[in-house]
């Protein structure tokens, strides 16, 4: 099979799987899966940039996704005026002192010669800085968190449309990636992986516990949507008219006017939920196409060739005058920004930010599985991986329950064992995912759609 045939074949199978869910389970379920597949695909594209183009093992995808989620609440939630007036002043003073400490520390680090004297002065700066902002900070936090803690207890956001947060999420992630890059890039792959994993845990720990910013374990829910609400649709005339036209056949066969009204009401309810999901699909699909288009162009540009050269022969590329560390930092920031965008999208569709739900298995390592199985270095491969792996991650449970149902029916209802097996069904997906990863890595290490380099003849 040529490269093109292989790509078409793989995506056809994917489409067939999704259609199967649509006809077999329901279109609503299929659309939910597709929307999360789209988000996963964007995340996978971001990681593919880092791993596929540059060979950076970023195990901290979770942290960047969570930063995107924070952006969603900070942009879209209405500001909590009382919290600002209660603790805003002190908080700004504390942040100012913190910034001052960092600035003084930086200047000391730059100006003084390395040695014990500098260490001592640095330690002094840090201790004095910590001591001075800590008081303001804890006062501010206490004041903010005591403002109506059941409903708010945090600063809120800017009250802007949530769609802006997708950009802001990307910027947040890029900023943190810059910082991480300063610390961890240049280390050997294992160390880089561990460091990013650790830093992403720190980021999530902060989001879980800084209640004044994110409400922490109390979660922020009811975020404004970028798409219409079902209730609004159900009462708007144009939507009802559209549904009537769409189901004209079914409606005309109704025996009485009352029956017709009943059927129409049902169509409107199910139609509105599908319409909302289609809107999300349109938005997410647009983002995916933009990111995909830019990634493909970047990969085929001189910049992309340089990145691959750095990945494959770092020393040679360096000898040719390429600034390896700078390029690594650049691509790490770019990839992380894309992951941040995807993280904001995820919080948008969930409509809530739950810091407790971020765990590395689902947000870091699963994205890894997507990129590696899809085909590292191939953008369409990453998209395919994002779709396929998310599909199996979601469908593994119903599928194994279905298989188990038949097995139990055949074996007879051996109560305790049957119950045990049903409890175990949700965890089949980890097992299957692990086995798939190991098999693909062993027998097809370049993934389903291998990296494809256009050679100039």
């Amino acid at each position, binding site marked *: 099979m040529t490269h093109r045939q292989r790509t078409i074949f793989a995506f056809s199978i994917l489409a067939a799987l999704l259609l199967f869910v649509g006809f077999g389970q329901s279109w609503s379920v299929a659309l939910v899966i597709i929307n999360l597949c789209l988000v996963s695909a964007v995340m996978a594209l971001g990681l593919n940039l880092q791993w596929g183009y540059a*060979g950076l*093992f970023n195990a901290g995808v979770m942290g960047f996704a969570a930063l995107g989620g924070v952006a969603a609440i900070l942009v879209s939630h209405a500001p909590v005026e009382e919290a600002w007036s209660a603790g805003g002043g002190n908080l700004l003073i504390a942040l100012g002192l913190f910034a001052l400490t960092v600035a003084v520390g930086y200047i000391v680090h730059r100006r003084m010669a390395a040695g014990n004297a500098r260490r001592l002065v640095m330690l002094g700066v840090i201790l004095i800085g910590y001591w001075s902002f800590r008081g303001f900070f804890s006062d501010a936090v206490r004041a903010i968190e005591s403002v109506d803690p059941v409903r708010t207890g945090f600063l809120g956001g800017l009250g802007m449309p949530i769609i802006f947060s997708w950009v802001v999420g990307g910027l947040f992630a890029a900023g943190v990636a810059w910082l991480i890059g300063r*610390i*961890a890039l240049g*280390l*050997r*792959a*294992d*160390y880089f*992986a*561990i*460091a990013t*994993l*650790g*830093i992403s*845990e*720190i980021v999530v*720990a*902060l989001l*879980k*516990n800084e209640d004044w910013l994110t409400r922490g374990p109390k979660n922020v829910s009811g975020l404004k949507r970028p798409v219409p609400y079902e209730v609004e649709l159900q009462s708007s005339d144009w939507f009802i008219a559209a549904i009537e036209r769409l189901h004209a056949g079914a409606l005309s066969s109704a025996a009485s006017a009352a029956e017709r009204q009943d059927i129409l009401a049902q169509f409107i309810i199910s139609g509105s939920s599908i319409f909302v999901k289609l809107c999300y699909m349109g938005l997410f699909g647009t983002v995916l196409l933009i990111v995909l288009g830019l990634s493909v162009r970047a990969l085929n540009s001189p910049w992309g060739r340089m990145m691959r050269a750095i990945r494959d022969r770092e020393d040679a590329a360096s000898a040719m005058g390429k600034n390896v560390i700078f390029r690594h930092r650049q691509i790490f920031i770019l990839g992380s920004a894309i992951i941040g965008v995807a993280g904001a999208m995820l919080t948008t569709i969930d409509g809530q930010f739950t810091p407790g739900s971020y*765990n590395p*298995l689902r947000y870091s*390592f699963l994205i*890894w*599985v997507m990129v*590696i199985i899809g085909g590292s270095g191939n953008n369409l491969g990453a998209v395919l991986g994002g779709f396929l792996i998310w599909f199996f991650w979601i469908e593994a449970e119903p599928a194994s329950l279905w298989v188990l149902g038949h097995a139990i029916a055949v074996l007879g209802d051996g109560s305790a064992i049957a119950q045990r097996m049903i*409890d*175990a069904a949700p*965890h*089949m*997906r*980890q*097992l*299957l*995912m*692990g*086995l798939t*990863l*190991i098999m693909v*890595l*062993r027998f097809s*290490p370049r993934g389903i759609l291998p990296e494809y380099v256009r050679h100039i003849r």
Partner: protein
Amino acid sequence: MTEFLNAIILLSNFVIIPALSYGSQLALGALGVTLVFGILRFANFAHGDLMAFGTMVTIFLTWWLQSLGVSFGPLPTALLALPAAIVITALFALLTDRLVYRYYRRIKAVPVVYIVASVGVMFVLNGLVRILIGTEDQLFSDGQKFIIHANDFKQMTGLSEGLSFKVTQGLTIALAVLVVAALFWFLQRTRTGKAMRAYSDNENLALFSGINPDRVVMVTWIIAASLATIAGVLYGLDKSFKPFIYFQLLLPIFAAAIVGGIGQPIGAIVGGYIVAFSEIASTYVYRKFLIYVMPESLEPTGMAQVLPTEYKFAVSFVLLVVVLLVRPTGIFRGKVL
């Protein structure tokens, strides 16, 4: 004077003893990571879940023993189940090596490929443990609970602060000392141990002098699996067994191994205690302690806590980052990464 004694007892009860036992558990885990790193030259992301697997096997065997009516007197029954569990876990580790890692040694893959493979193994173990035992908390400690009970201590000494010393804490520290002593004796004195150190130091030279690499790798996996099982069981006895917590332990363990200097057994031990002490000491509320030691005029008004308790886990990562910045080879000059 009593004030001062009370302060010391308070600190031992809430910081020193818990940190010693937690540190021992981390040290045993980090030793496994560091040995695999020294010999196989990759960071094993599946180590936390290997600990969970070993502990799970131990729990099943313990339940079986308990159902037979077997008990170990004042000590937990799990200790009787431990040797068999170690054998099963070691066999499992050897199986994963045979099925997964050996191929990459053959083709001399780069370290990143090993890490990805270990992530695959991690997923498999993760699913396996949850399928077999579920996700809930499992308490499997039995036998006597305390060596010294807080109330007994108060009566014995007449101090107002009590010191409690749990059997599981004592057991952890004692067993850790024994295991580490045995491991060092093995590495320093036996032929196989010397072969392992030689292989870790310079692979080609070791192969040249006739060391059998397959045997070295096999022994490494057996030791790593044994250490993982022991560490996991001790942690589970001390706290409780919950698969997700074991996955989370991976990071403090990595931190311990790297802070001490990866590839250096002694570094793993020191690193384990450093991580444990900094986690517990930085999140402890010193208020009561300061009231005891400070003169009345200087007594604290706040909690006197460096960091909120929720940041306990994060402390180890901060430590990790600081070490990466200041001294990437760790305290004991491990492998240069």
